[in-house]
């Protein structure tokens, strides 16, 4: 966990990509889940933030 946080602080690719991946996956689950409408409403913004973050962070150093 400490390694993950220090990687985020030092703008390393691995942890940031992991964070972006979690956001994308969360966004897709929110988009397609059948339980609560508010999760569907906020799903797009979560997926969009994750996707943009993924594109940017894939250029960070390892």
């Amino acid at each position, binding site marked *: 966990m400490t390694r993950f946080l220090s990687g985020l602080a030092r703008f390393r690719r691995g942890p940031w*990509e992991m964070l972006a*991946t979690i956001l*994308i*996956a969360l*966004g*897709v689950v929110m*988009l*397609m*889940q*059948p339980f609560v*409408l508010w999760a*569907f*409403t*906020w*799903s*797009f913004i979560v*997926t*969009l933030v*994750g*996707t943009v973050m*993924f*594109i940017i962070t894939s250029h960070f150093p390892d």
Partner: protein
Amino acid sequence: MAETPIDRLARNTPASVAHRVRGLSDRAIAWAFVTPTILLLLAINIFPLIWTIRLSFTNFRANRPNEPVEFVGLRNYQRILTDPDIWHTMQATAHFLFWTLFFQVVIGFGLAWLINRKFKGNDLLTTLIVLPMMLSPAVVGNFWTFLYQPQIGLFNYAVEFLTGGSVAASSFTMLGSVELAPWAIVIVDTWMWTPFVMLICLAGLRSIPDYIYEAAEVDRASKWRQFWTMTVPLVLPFLMLAVLFRGIENFKMFDLVVQLTGGGPGDTTLLTSIELKREAFEKWRTGFSSAYAIILFVTVFGLASIYVKALNKVKER
């Protein structure tokens, strides 16, 4: 020695042109080859994408091109993301996507594993299994509609036969039932596209060298252990590629489902692509449907990014 046409062409080329051609660097030649492709991509991919993003913030209707176009900000996105009907189409798509991928991977891998063994008639059987994916989705949709007919359809009679007569052929209708219709489209897509997954898995299985299994035999590894620790990990990149292809294809599935159910009964099989087409070309809400398309695009793009990353990690192992 007689002069060839090439020699003659070279002799007749003006010195200035010949100099120019000789003077092209490798980089310039590379650009000369790549430029037409880039221009084509810009014209048919990037420009429509940017145009769609622009339209998604307007109330433009393609059937009323002369009406003034109004900028509506995020209103289209807001409407889509608070609409319970669109939420329902997302759930129908998720159901279709999950179960088709699940069945295609399990059955496709199983078939590839069986076909990979050497036996008589192997090639003929492979050809027969691959046949469904060669057919047009419109044709497949049409003839499965007949197969699902409760009165004359073979599918219903097969179910009656397999259940020992406890489920009568005319007692259920696959395409007309709210409970069964989502499964009816899953069955047809699985029937049609499992061979594709099988072929990719077969390529993976055939790429595993025999000496690895021979070494495992020497080490007295059981068949079960060989399967889980050698076969599965080595085929995994191929399997993931198949899932990526099928996942993206099924996310935008249209023709097969339109032919089978048209989105019905009610809206139980109304997938996002069908709903999108209705909004864009039946209701002519171009701005609204552009926003809808952008939401789907971002979702697929995000998923594909994760997937490609995972695929690269598996290949690095």
